[in-house]
């Protein structure tokens, strides 16, 4: 997904780390990673550790980190849009206008990354970066622990109990699409994009699935 960007910018002291939030582990992610033919780091995060550390809620989200290891931009949706919500579910296609708008939004995001790498533009000063960092609440902290336990239980033949813990995790952290969709995928590959997913997306109403980054 980021290979072209990386190829353009790697000589500018730049690196991409793509992290698979994949409770099923490396083998489940392998085909996409190999197809990407990327030169940057492709890492496997079976415990959703990155989501825990950075308080993430969906994929793809990106964090921009500067040369001193500081957060230049806190977690943001990485160039995706909500146009998919208007997709024709029968034909699985978007209108040409939506497709074009979606592409334009992605290109604008990639351009922002290029500008940042080349000139430092779009890096947020400390106060602005902090304001945009969502807080981890005690409920979110509990959700993480329940999710962790749930995944373990499922992987060790205690699916019903595991699912119960993961469902509780989603109740405690309803904003997290990752917790919900990973749990659904563990139940059945593909379920995370099935009818329950679409119902949950519809229930958002006016709220964004992929909030646009404030660039």
């Amino acid at each position, binding site marked *: *997904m980021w290979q072209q960007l990386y190829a353009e910018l790697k000589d*500018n*002291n*730049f*690196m*991409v*780390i*793509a*992290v*698979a939030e*994949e409770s099923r582990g*490396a083998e489940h*992610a*392998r085909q*996409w990673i*190999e197809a990407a033919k990327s030169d940057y*780091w*492709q*890492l*496997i*995060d079976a*415990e959703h*550790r*990155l989501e*825990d*550390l950075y*308080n993430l809620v969906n*994929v*793809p*989200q*990106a*964090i*921009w*980190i500067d*040369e001193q*290891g*500081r*957060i*230049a931009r806190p977690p943001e949706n990485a160039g995706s849009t909500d146009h998919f919500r208007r997709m024709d579910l029968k034909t699985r296609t978007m209108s040409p206008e939506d497709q074009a708008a979606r592409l334009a939004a992605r290109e604008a995001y990639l351009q922002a990354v290029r500008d*940042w790498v080349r000139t430092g533009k779009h890096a947020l000063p400390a106060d602005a*970066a902090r304001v945009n*960092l969502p*807080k981890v609440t*005690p409920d979110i*902290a*509990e959700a*993480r*622990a*329940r999710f*962790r*336990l749930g995944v*373990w*239980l499922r992987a060790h033949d*205690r699916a019903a*109990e595991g699912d119960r*813990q993961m469902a509780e995790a989603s109740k405690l952290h309803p904003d997290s699409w990752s917790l919900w*969709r990973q749990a659904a*995928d563990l139940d059945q590959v593909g379920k*995370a*994009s099935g009818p329950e997913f679409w119902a949950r997306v519809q229930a958002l109403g006016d709220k964004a699935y992929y909030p646009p980054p404030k660039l």
Partner: protein
Amino acid sequence: MTKVLTPTAEHDVAARDGLWMSPKDAETATGWTLKPEGMCRADACVPLPASALKPNEVDVAAFWTKLGGPVIASDQKDVWALGAPADERNAALDGLEAPDFTLPDLDGKPRSLSQLRGKKVFLATWASW
């Protein structure tokens, strides 16, 4: 044996009555060391109530709760998840230092964010679901 799942690892310890275990196992499982002042890690110490201590035993569930972290047990009480306290996560992020992590690539080779100090890093998540 009791399995303890922490944010960064999993450990098998000999525990009874929940998470009562030896100070040695407590240190292995949590990264905190029992001292006269309480459970300590680097400069920080969390005092423990007398009810959380017995000769050569410490109640890790009580300690972790005192730390402010979630403690979740399986139905059979054989597997426990200790989550990071919300305060710890917020303090780390509020300092705006990107939290370090080590994760394996497809070949199992561990890679750490801190190895890339000196470069701008674009850190992006994805999933097949």
